[in-house]
C-alpha cells in the first residue's frame, strides 16, 4: 500500500476534492470542509479498503495525510 493510493481512495470518496490537490504533506483539515460526517466517510473508506479501524483519536492526532496514512499502515 502506498500513500498515493491512499490519496486516490480519499479523492474517490469526496467529490468536491480536485484531483491532485491533496499531497502527502497536506494538512487535510485545511483542504476539507472538515466535519464529523467527513470523519465517518474517512473511517468507512479505511475499513472497506484496508480492513483497518481508525478512531476519533487517530484522526485528531493526525495533521497531514501522511500522518493518517502511517496510522492506517500500522493497523493493517
Amino acid at each position: 500500500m502506498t500513500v498515493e493510493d491512499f490519496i486516490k481512495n480519499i479523492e474517490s470518496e469526496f467529490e468536491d476534492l480536485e484531483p491532485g490537490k491533496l499531497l502527502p504533506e497536506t494538512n487535510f483539515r485545511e483542504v476539507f470542509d472538515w466535519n464529523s460526517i467527513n470523519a465517518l466517510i474517512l473511517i468507512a473508506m479505511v475499513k472497506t479498503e484496508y480492513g483497518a479501524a481508525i478512531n476519533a483519536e487517530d484522526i485528531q492526532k493526525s495533521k497531514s495525510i501522511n500522518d493518517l496514512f502511517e496510522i492506517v499502515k500500522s493497523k493493517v
Partner: protein
Amino acid sequence: MAIFSIPKVRMAGIAAAVPRKEVSNYDYKWVSAKDREMLVKTVGVEKRRVAEQGTATSDLCIASAERLIQELGWDKQEIQLLIFISQSRDYIIPSTSGIIQHKLGLPHSCVAYDIGLGCSGWVYGVSAMVSMMNAGSIKKGLLLVGDISTLTASYRDKSTYPLFGDAATATAFEYDETAPPVHFNLESDGSGYDAIIIPDGGMRNFISKKSFDYRKFGVGIYRNRLQIALNGIEVFNFALREVTPNVKKLLQELSATTADYEYFVFHQANLLMNETLRKMLKLEKEKVPYSIRNYGNTSSASIPLTIVSELREVITLRKVKLFSCGFGVGLSWGSVAMEVEKVVCPAVIEY
C-alpha cells in the same frame, strides 16, 4: 454464546404506524445548505415523521396493533402475550405494556411486560416472543416495538436532530407445530453504555434544575441533559467492528451463506454506516432494503418498518427467507434469521 434456534412459532402479521406530520431535512435551518445536502446524501435521511407533543409511543403501537388484529381476523380474547419494547415509554412508572393491554381490550389472562431496548429491540423481541410461545400454551402473541425519538432530540444538535424519525410497529406471532425454527445470535457490551445516552431523568442522575441547562458540545451541537447524546464515531466503529462477525457467525452455525437469504434488513442507523456494512458483507444492493430516506432512523421500529414499507408485497405473497440485524444503544446487537410465508401486512399506517 447466545446462538439458538426455536421452532413452532410463526410470524403471522406485521404492521407499522408513523405520525402524519412529515418534515424535510432540506428545511433544517440550523445547518448550512451544504450540510443539508450532506445529511440527505451521506446520512441518507431526507424526510422524517415527527409526533406531536402528547402523542406517546403506545398510541402508534395501538394504531398498528388494532389494524393488524383486524386484518388477521384474530379474537382479542385469544391474545395471551404482549411484549412492548422501547426506549421512550409513556411514563417512568408504570410499564407501558399494561396500558396497551387495557386499551386494546386484551384479557387479564394476557402476559404483558416491557423490555427497554432500542436499535436491537425488534430482534431481541422476536427472540422473547418465540421463546415464550414455543412451550405451546400461548397460541397468539403481539410484539409491539417503537420509539418517539424526536421529542428528546435537541433542535440545535446537528448530530441527532436531523437523524431521527418516529414510528411504532406491531408483529403478530402464532403457535404452529409446522413452523420452521427461527435462529438468533444476540450479543451485548455495556462498556459502551454512554455512546448513546440521555444522562438525566433516571435514578443515577435524578432530574434537577441543571438538567435543563444547554451546553455546547461541538460546532452546531447544543443540548441539555434530558436530550439524547450520540457519539457518532464511537457508534460507527462499534457497528463496523461487531455487526459483520455477528452475521457471519450465525450464518456459519446454520451452514448457510448470504446467498441463502433473499433480503437482509438492517437497523436503519445511517446510510453511510449501512452501506459500509453491506459492502463488508458483499451483499447486492437489491438484497438490502432501506426506509431511512423517507422515515429517518426510527430506532427500535426501523427493522419492522422497513419490512412493511419495502417488502410488503413479497412477504404477503410468498415464502421468503429474511435475515435481520439490529445494533446500537446499550450497546446491544443481534441477528435473526427466519423463513416467513403469507404474512398479513397492511400498508404503513398514518396516525
